[in-house]
């Protein structure tokens, strides 16, 4: 059987997404303004987003971009100032959190310190009036899912950070919510544990088929885990797409800059080519742009040769990163360009070398200046 995510991808490919049955969360023109008058702060300005059932959706952006506010509006901890939020076609904008079949994994975990792991995990079902036997059965099942069977009778403070994280996850999964909201749940973990939890989360998502809405400011985390990503900045949703879309075709300079490393070069459109600051022409894919544009060039799309034809520049910095070496090349007009080259024992370049540069022009993104 196909996982929910794979089914979703097949449907999406066939253009068969049905708004009424395949959309889990539908936020329509959601705005949130704190305060009033001169001191009013716009946390969210007119955000519309559709999150499909069974997908792993990530809201990505720097702190203060409104991603957590949007998550809190979906959970019911905040009421939007304008717009509406629908869950599987039902308007839930003004429903209190305890009436929404949506659960949250909190950044601080927020485990109940006076309850055991099993009581924490069973809390949601107990509040919904499930029988003690059903609660116990569900707790056993979910604790097995997160591999914490042996810790059922411990108190949260007797567990390590990673274990507490998994209790928080189990607690939110136990009532089988339609949507699981995750508010930067991995930010308190160290790197190794974070990587472990990332694959753990992916596994849990495909095993349960629950829609995950994941909030993070870590672009790498977003790229590796998500089916789709929504990039946010200053209360606005800038771009929604698969990790590939976002990385290869960022809609603007902010997205290109935020996702991975990017070189930006100013250029002017001349016919079906662009002229960069050094005077060289590049045959980048144009879609009717005219005048001044910005080229977004990924470091891996730049290659360095010893032949000094075409664009050339001088290496001003070389950072050895193991598999790759990052060269910063200063072009003739003074603009810097970073190239990521596979490290080789021979034929390496040194700081001060004048080198030729080849840019994979077809992969360059042209952004409006």
């Amino acid at each position, binding site marked *: 059987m196909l996982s929910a995510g794979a089914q979703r991808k097949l449907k999406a490919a066939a253009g068969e997404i049905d708004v009424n049955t395949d959309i889990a969360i539908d936020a329509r023109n959601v705005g949130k303004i704190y305060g009033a008058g001169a001191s009013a702060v716009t946390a969210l300005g007119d955000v519309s987003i559709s999150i499909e059932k069974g997908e792993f959706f990530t809201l990505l952006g720097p702190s203060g971009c409104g991603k957590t506010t949007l998550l809190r509006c979906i*959970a*019911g901890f905040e009421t939007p100032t304008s717009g509406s939020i629908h869950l599987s076609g039902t308007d839930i904008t003004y429903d209190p*959190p305890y009436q929404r079949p949506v659960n949250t994994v*909190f950044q601080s975990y*927020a485990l*109940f310190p006076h309850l055991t792991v099993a009581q924490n995990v069973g*809390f949601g079902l107990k509040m919904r009036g499930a029988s003690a036997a059903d609660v116990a059965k569900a707790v056993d099942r979910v604790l097995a899912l997160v591999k914490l069977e042996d810790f059922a009778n411990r108190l949260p403070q007797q567990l390590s950070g990673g274990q507490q994280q998994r209790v928080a996850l189990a607690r939110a999964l136990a009532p089988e919510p339609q949507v699981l909201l995750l508010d930067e749940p991995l930010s308190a973990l160290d790197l190794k544990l974070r990587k472990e939890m990332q694959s753990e989360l992916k596994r849990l998502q495909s095993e349960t088929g629950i829609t995950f809405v994941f909030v993070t400011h870590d672009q790498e985390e977003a790229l590796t885990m998500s089916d789709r990503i929504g990039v946010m900045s200053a209360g606005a949703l800038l771009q929604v797409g698969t990790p590939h879309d976002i990385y290869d075709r960022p809609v603007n300079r902010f997205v290109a800059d935020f996702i991975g490393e990017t070189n930006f070069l100013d250029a002017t459109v001349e016919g079906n080519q662009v002229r960069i600051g050094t005077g060289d022409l590049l045959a980048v894919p144009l879609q009717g742009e005219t005048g001044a544009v910005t080229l977004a060039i990924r470091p891996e799309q730049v290659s360095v040769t010893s032949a000094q034809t075409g664009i050339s520049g001088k290496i001003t910095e070389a950072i050895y990163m193991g598999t790759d070496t990052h060269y910063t090349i200063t072009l003739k007009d003074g603009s810097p360009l970073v190239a990521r080259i596979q490290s080789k024992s021979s034929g390496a370049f040194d700081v001060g070398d004048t080198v030729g540069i080849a840019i994979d022009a077809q992969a360059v993104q042209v952004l409006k200046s």
Partner: protein
Amino acid sequence: MAKPRVFDVTTLPGFTFIAILAFVLLYAPIITLVIYSFNGGDSVNQWGGFSLEWYAVAAKNEAVQDATARSLIIAVWASVISTTVATMAALGTTRRGKFTGQTMIYVIINQPLMVPEIVTAVALLIFFSSVKVATGYTGLGYLILAHSAFCIPFAYLPIKARLEGMDTAMETAAADLYATPWQTFRYVTLPLLLPGVIAGAMLAFIISLDNVIITEFVKSAGQDTLPTYMLGQLRRALTPEVNAISTALLALTVLILTVFVFVTKKRD
């Protein structure tokens, strides 16, 4: 490991002298009182050998038994009522957004700490005497109500401190997990708040137990509490019986305060 300090009051001249003087002033009279409660003679300032005689006299004294029972009944009721009201007040002032008149509410709740007790006492005397005339009821209810009222701020302060120290994410998480506001209070807020509630109740209990002024004004005939009984005794012959009762009261207070310290210290 000793940390170097920029400012350490213990190095100031006279620190030790002032500290010792303060302790002597605080505790010398109390220690004398405790010592004379074991006096074999019948003077409160002339030693006549060690004896537990006056404890036995006090324990057998029906008026003392009566006053003790009354004191305990009033203190238990007053602490239950004032703690309940204080818990609601603390929730009402901490589990909501900022509101206009917030400072005013704090002042009103803590009013008994600031208004001179004698003023409250006179006010209650006048108020209750007209209620007594109107209703004909002369029972302990008046004393319990009066004690409950002035105990509220003492119960309120530790409960409010505990609530302010509690992470509201717990309550948010409970609401997220289908708990209605009442369930959230019952299963999350109250259990986490319990140490604060116990501390508040114990403080209220002690405050009620040794109140004199308001009790003296509000009580009807034959409604002596232990402190007002002792006050009455002082006007007559002074025997070490008063010392024995005082020492017993002191021991109870110290015991409760010790528990109070442990309960409040355990919080996170």
